[in-house]
């Protein structure tokens, strides 16, 4: 007979259970998912062994959705129903995106929310829904290969993503039915993958050259806080431009009419092969249509040099924004498949005066960093020192008279943070106030990005300037914002979780969540019940662990008894009750542990302070 295991006192009931978590790089062109297995972070392949999932979604009339390689097959043959580069639409208004080249003007339409949407044979699809399909495909891949449900994911977003774009990403995850542990910025994830967060303090540059976009981010690591000092780049510059330039050369050599689209398409494919071959080889033979020839690396370099130089111009400008010289950068992290091109590495090395970091596959580095962070957040690592702190990338403000933007939280403020500011009425007897939330660094509201508008009504009529309206901005650890407005004399309150102007409201998300589950409604119910049971289990484990740790010192006998009773009740209902009953029982436990949780927090602060005093001596 096997021996029964008894857990150590003070530890959670099942301390060594490895929880499943993953990091997701949700890219414009390609997406990846990675996880930490036996202490090593690695990206997960599909059944055919491919790690990269093209960020392409295809819809058919009968409602079949395909994602990735199988969707890519339809890019030319069924362009109308095939959506690529959806990331460029996330959190944007229709007007913002009409000029984007990937979307023909007639492909985009306005959805009820002011968001752009794509008309397909399967109905109108908004960017959040489309992204959720990509997330679902990745999550399924991970769950199939890990053999269990993911407890949560970390999703990466570009450093310059504003509030609306972050919210849209989080909404997509919610619709995909996956818990987001945290959103982190792509350059931060890349830095984490290289372990720069645990290294010495200093300035790091993340050079990210993808297929169609170039991003350069300057990060400063100080006391464990990654601060984004500046970001720059070009949203229409990438490895595809290398292919285009090489294809142009081939077409010219073969003397083919430039307007022959078919030949040009073939030249593009050939160009890509040539580029990839010349990464390792010094020279390649080329058979292109009737033309036979060769290309060596020097020739290719001369063809693509102007494009690489463009990236360096962006680097220079961004360093200037950060107030830095190239020599002050400690590490340069290379991200994106196009950084494999030798000329890119050479030029970057010359420009910064030191060798860039290239050990980790540049396609995978962001996903790997996200996976490492997910592993910490889910609680698999007890490395107390790894704490990734973030700042808000763009100032948050409010519109004041004359169309001016008043900053309430300046950029680079560490999050989470809450700031309040008082405003007053402009006219005698004014009973309502419009609050316009904006984001950006510019003085004028019209130059900033409009995030949300709402109204505070029911202000008692007073003379102009007498009312006191306190507007509070609260930003959580993911960089998501909640705004409340309150008239402080009378206490009239308007509590509004700001949903960005181009976002989805809760009902829309719920309805998408329902429609996204292709099965019958019962399945949906069953899934919600299971989720609620998991939540109940999580609450019970957390409280038990807390009781074991310091229930004796912080609680009286009666208090402890009350909590234990609530737990027993919850455990019973979790096995026997319906969704609502479990929800209710969780609330009862929450209520009974409110004071205990707060005492624990205070105790841990006191402990940390004492520990600190000792360290100082």
């Amino acid at each position: 007979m096997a021996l029964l295991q008894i857990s150590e006192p003070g530890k959670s009931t099942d301390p060594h259970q490895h929880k499943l978590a993953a990091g997701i790089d949700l890219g414009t062109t390609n997406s990846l998912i990675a996880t930490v297995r036996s202490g090593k972070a690695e990206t997960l392949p599909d059944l055919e062994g491919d790690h990269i999932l093209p960020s392409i979604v295809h819809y058919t009339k009968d409602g079949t959705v395909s994602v990735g390689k199988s969707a890519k097959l339809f890019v030319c043959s069924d362009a109308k129903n095939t959506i690529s580069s959806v990331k460029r639409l996330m959190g944007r208004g229709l007007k913002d995106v009409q000029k984007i080249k990937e979307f023909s003007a007639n492909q985009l339409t306005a959805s009820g929310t002011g968001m752009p949407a794509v008309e397909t044979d399967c109905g109108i699809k908004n960017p959040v829904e489309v992204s959720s399909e990509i997330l679902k495909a990745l999550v399924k891949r991970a769950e199939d290969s890990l053999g269990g449900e993911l407890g949560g994911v970390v999703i990466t977003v570009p450093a310059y993503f504003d509030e609306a774009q972050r919210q849209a990403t989080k909404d997509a995850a919610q619709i995909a039915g996956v818990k987001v542990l945290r959103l982190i910025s792509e350059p931060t994830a890349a830095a984490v993958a290289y372990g720069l967060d645990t290294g010495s303090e200093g300035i790091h540059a993340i050079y990210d050259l993808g297929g169609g976009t170039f991003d350069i981010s300057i990060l400063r690591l100080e006391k464990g806080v990654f601060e984004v000092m500046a970001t720059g780049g070009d949203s229409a510059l990438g490895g595809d431009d290398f292919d285009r330039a090489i294809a142009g050369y081939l077409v010219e050599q073969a003397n083919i009419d430039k307007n022959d689209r078919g030949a040009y398409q073939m030249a593009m494919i050939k160009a890509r092969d040539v580029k990839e071959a010349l990464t390792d080889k010094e020279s390649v033979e080329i058979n292109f249509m009737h033309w036979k020839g060769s290309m060596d690396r020097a020739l290719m370099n001369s063809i693509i040099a102007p494009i690489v130089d463009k990236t360096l111009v962006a680097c220079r400008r961004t360093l200037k924004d950060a107030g830095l010289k190239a020599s002050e950068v400690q590490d340069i992290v290379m991200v994106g498949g196009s950084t494999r091109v030798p000329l890119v590495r050479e030029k970057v090395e010359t420009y910064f005066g030191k060798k860039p970091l290239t050990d980790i596959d540049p396609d995978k580095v962001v996903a790997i960093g996200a996976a490492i962070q997910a592993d910490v957040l889910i609680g698999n690592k007890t490395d107390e020192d790894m704490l990734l702190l973030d700042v808000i990338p763009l100032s948050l403000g409010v519109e004041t008279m004359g169309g001016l933007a008043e900053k309430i939280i300046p950029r680079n403020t560490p999050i989470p943070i809450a700031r309040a500011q008082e405003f007053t009425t402009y006219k005698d007897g004014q009973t309502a106030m419009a609050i316009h939330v904006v984001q950006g660094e510019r003085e004028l509201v019209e130059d900033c990005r409009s995030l949300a508008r709402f109204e505070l009504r029911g202000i008692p009529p007073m003379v102009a300037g007498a009312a006191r309206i306190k507007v509070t901005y609260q930003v959580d650890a993911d960089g998501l914002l909640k705004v409340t407005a309150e008239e402080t004399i009378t206490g009239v309150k308007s509590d509004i979780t700001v949903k960005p102007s181009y976002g989805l409201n809760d009902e829309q998300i719920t309805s998408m969540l329902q429609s996204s589950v292709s099965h019958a409604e019962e399945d949906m119910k069953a899934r919600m019940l299971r989720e609620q049971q998991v939540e109940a289990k999580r609450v019970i484990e957390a409280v038990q662990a807390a009781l074991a740790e310091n229930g004796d010192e912080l609680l009286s006998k009666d208090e402890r008894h009350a909590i234990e009773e609530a737990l027993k009740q919850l455990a019973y209902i979790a096995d026997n009750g319906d969704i609502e009953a479990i929800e209710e029982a969780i609330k009862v436990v929450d209520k009974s542990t409110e004071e205990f949780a707060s005492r624990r927090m205070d105790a841990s602060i006191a402990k940390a302070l004492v520990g600190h005093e000792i360290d100082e001596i």
Partner: protein
Amino acid sequence: MTKAQQNYFELFGLEPNFSIDVPKLSAKLRTLLNSVHPDRFASSGAQQQMLSMQKTTQLNDAFAVLKHPVKRAQYLLHLKTGIDTAKDHTVNDPEFLMQQLELREELETISGGNDISQLHQFADKISALEEEQESRMTELFQQEPLDTDELEKAIYKLQFLHKTLSDIEQAEDKLLG
């Protein structure tokens, strides 16, 4: 058992004083965040997450005030006397008013030219004045009873010097183009 809301100094286990070792404070912030940051509760219940979010917000808020000499002085004065100097307030100090005008004029002349070293010299001068003002502030806050008139004046001066330093930075950006 529930304590009244702690003030910013208490949050960091400090006596309410003007003089603060900012690098030490920053290290302390990190130690505290290590035990209360929402990332530590990513897989806990909603209640714990809310609580940790509140605490972290409070700590970040407190740090932003304490690390900044002007905000710290304003906060400390408000804490000790209830006087709020954060809102518009005027101080009657003709002597300083004159000095202010002269310094502003000097800055305008320098930023009108194109000699960056002159601007740097000016920056050094203002920094020295600022340091001087900070030590004066420390002394003023140690007096019993507090001379609130003098404190208000001192805060006003410190605020002016701070503003001038940030204007110098802007002028530098312009000069460097």
